[in-house]
């Protein structure tokens, strides 16, 4: 750690530790924010960046460690305390009221707001600051008419008017178009010149290298390094983010000798693309093959289009371009029901939210999504359903829950078992696993991975979407890397290279296709 240079230090976090259950979200993290500096906080999803920023903003209190403001320890009990200390934060989801004007939105945030608001005075203050820092927005315009980039400017203005000196921005570039990113960086320059401190949270390497004065890298709750500008290059940062051997070695043990390509193609995407709705990522020109008996892993930082890819294959969203083939047949326009009938199963991260109905019984949930298999006249053949599902639970070695019990009353693990047992009951040809181990404890995660391998060995194809790079490396027979809705890299088992994958995920490398 650097020795803090007393005067310029605005905020210092010392040895912050925060634990959530069995997860150590922050492990003795230290960080110093100096006036006139852009400090980038870099790390994968789940590295602990958000936890740290929430602690700095008083949202969460650390288990141990302290926060110093100008050299003296302070106790941040709420965001209100943090704001009083001159700390402000821009969240990923903006906290603006669309129907009100820019000035009104900002006025609402000010603590010194009089009972009768003189809008003209607030507007004048906004104009003054906006001109000084290049945050030009019309104070009278209703927020709903502003672009996302302009809304972000309003968020920053809000903090400046409230006299914040330390600005925390949580992935501010995620929602911006490239030219807006450049504008934001110019704003950073202007703020720096006036002595503001900026904490810029991101996982995009290129941006960090172009705008940060100091870079702190986190991995699995720990700070893995702090570098000043100039000493940081993409290679060093990728190693810090993903670890020396994070990508590459671990995966070669259990399945080292496996053929890298299944015999027959189950699913093919040719030039597939989608349109983005809302904050989704549009898929661009995807070429993908999933063969029988192989696990195709998809890596990428969150929001790179992985979820959209799974949904596209499931049939939840239409193709805007290209074709989808399932076992040789053109499935571009198949409904979800038809895809499922043809043998596509879906195991999501949040089973209760995406694959089960909490208010319905286990029995009823087991019949959902089984197509016409258990139809009997106007009713359902509950007997044969129970027999088949009972077998499925036994094969998987899951305990059978009470069938009349509402699924919402089961524990999270048991909900997932119900969903997995249902999805595996009819020998699926293709399993779409969307973050299947996210939020599971280590033992459950291992059993899910074993299950996926077993399904693979029985000849099914698996699309494994995950944010856990080690899991992907261990499981994947082929690994795809996605970035901004496109597949930017493809590697057969054992041929991936840690650094390259890291570069591709963070958008700092050249597209490769080694497959």
């Amino acid at each position: 750690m650097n020795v803090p240079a007393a005067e310029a230090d605005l905020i210092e976090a010392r040895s912050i530790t925060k634990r959530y259950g069995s997860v150590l979200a922050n492990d003795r993290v230290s960080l110093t924010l100096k006036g006139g500096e852009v400090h980038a906080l870099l790390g994968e999803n789940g590295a602990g960046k958000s936890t740290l920023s929430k602690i700095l903003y008083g949202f969460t209190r650390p288990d141990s460690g302290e926060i110093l403001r100008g050299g003296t320890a302070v106790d941040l009990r709420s965001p209100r305390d943090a704001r009083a200390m001159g700390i402000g934060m821009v969240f990923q989801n903006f906290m603006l009221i669309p129907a009100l004007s820019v000035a009104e939105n900002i006025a609402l945030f000010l603590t010194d707001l009089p009972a009768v608001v003189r809008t003209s005075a607030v507007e004048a203050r906004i104009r003054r600051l906006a001109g000084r820092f290049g945050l030009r927005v019309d104070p009278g315009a209703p927020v709903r008419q502003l672009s996302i980039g302009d809304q972000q400017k309003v968020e920053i203005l809000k903090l400046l008017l409230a006299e914040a000196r330390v600005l925390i921005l949580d992935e501010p570039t995620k929602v911006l178009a490239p030219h807006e990113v450049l504008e934001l960086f110019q704003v950073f320059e202007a703020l720096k010149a006036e002595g503001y401190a900026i904490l810029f949270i991101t996982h995009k390497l290129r941006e960090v290298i172009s705008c940060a004065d100091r870079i702190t890298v986190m991995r699995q709750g720990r700070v893995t390094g702090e570098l000043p500008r100039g000493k940081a290059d993409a290679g060093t940062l990728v190693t810090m983010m993903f670890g020396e051997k994070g990508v590459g070695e671990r995966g070669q043990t259990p399945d080292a000798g496996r053929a890298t390509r299944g015999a027959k193609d189950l699913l093919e995407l040719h030039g597939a693309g989608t349109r983005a709705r809302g904050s989704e990522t549009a898929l661009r020109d995807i070429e993908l093959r999933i063969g029988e008996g192989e696990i195709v892993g998809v890596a990428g930082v969150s929001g790179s289009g992985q979820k959209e890819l799974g949904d596209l294959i499931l049939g939840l969203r239409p193709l805007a371009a290209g074709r989808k083939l399932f076992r040789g047949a053109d499935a571009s326009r198949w409904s979800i029901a038809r895809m499922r009938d043809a043998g596509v199963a879906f195991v999501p991260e949040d089973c209760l939210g995406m694959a089960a109905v909490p208010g319905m019984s286990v029995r009823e949930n087991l019949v959902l999504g089984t197509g016409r298999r258990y139809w009997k006249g106007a009713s359902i053949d509950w007997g044969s359903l129970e027999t088949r599902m009972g077998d499925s639970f036994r094969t998987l070695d899951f305990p059978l829950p009470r069938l009349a019990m509402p699924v919402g009353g089961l524990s999270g693990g048991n909900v997932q078992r119900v969903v997995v047992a249902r999805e595996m009951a009819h020998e699926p040809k293709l399993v779409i696993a969307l973050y299947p181990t996210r939020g599971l404890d280590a033992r459950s995660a291992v059993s899910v991975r074993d299950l996926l391998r077993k399904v693979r060995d029985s000849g099914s194809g698996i699309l494994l979407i995950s944010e856990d790079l080690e899991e992907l490396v261990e499981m994947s027979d082929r690994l795809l890397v996605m970035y901004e809705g496109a597949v930017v890299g493809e590697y057969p088992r054992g041929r991936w290279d840690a650094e390259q994958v890291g570069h591709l995920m963070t958008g700092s490398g050249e597209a490769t296709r080694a497959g």
Partner: protein
Amino acid sequence: MPAERNAAARRFPRVVGETGRYAGIVLVVLAVFGGILLVAGKNPLKAYADTFLYTLANAYGFSELLVRMTPILLTAVAVAIPSRLGLINVGGEGQLYLGAWMATAGALSFPHLPAWVLLPIVTLLGFAGGAVWAAIPGILRARKLVNETIATLLLNYVAPLIVSYFIFGPWRSAESSAYPQSPAFPDAARLPSFFNTRIHAGLIIALVSLLLYWLLMERTRWGVQMRSIGGNQEAAQRLGIPVAAWIVVALAIGGGMAGLAGMGEVSGIHGRLRQGLSPGYGFTGFLIAWLAGGRPLGILLMAFLFAIITSAGDILQITQGLPYSVVNILLALLLFIVLARRPARRAAG
């Protein structure tokens, strides 16, 4: 919530439990309303005694309760069916009018058909009228264009205008030019009535519809699909359930039920189409379905209770000289109490 229902079922039979629940609500409402009557200088005990005497304790009064109950049972089912998919149908009133209008069209178009042909036609047309009227918001919702609550609500204002156009225009009866109404239905298009009262076959249709609603939701695979949409639309969609189609179908079936209510009024009671056919039966049905939480038995009990309350309005007007609108106080009280109970129940479940 089903968990809580199952638990209740284990402790004592469901019928007893539900009846007790509603009886409790009614007692509290009666006590508070009695206080209001006292303040107004009336004798609450006398008022309640009168109401009891002229409704439950009197054969004619009781038959009128069943007559009042008929349309609101159907409009309650019209709300309950879509509600199981998480859809809010506020359009029972409009669907009722359209059902009455289509039924009238059938009755006037085939005056020479025998009853055994004409009555099924009139009934089906009544159903179809309501179904079409509700399918419009259904399609708009399924295509994610307009929220079904708003669309069904707005169509309520359109349907009576269609009826008015026809009874002021093409269908205006020649016999009474002063009063806008359609010509009388041929006898073959009248629903049979029973025991020399105004109770008509519509009551049987209503009770059968209630039973069918229960069977559909609890005993068929279609019910499982519809309930899954209400329980978790995202999951239902990902599991391949045709969500958009079900939204249209469920609203249409619901609308059809309200249409049957309208058919019952023109064919069973009035024998012709006229303005002001419904004193808000569609909205009453909404309240009933909502207060009963969509449960068939609750709908039956609540519909009966609402029939008593609306009758009470007429009776108190005559015996106590109170304005009819006092029943609105009574209805509002009922609503408040049920609303107040709700969070407690959720916490218990």
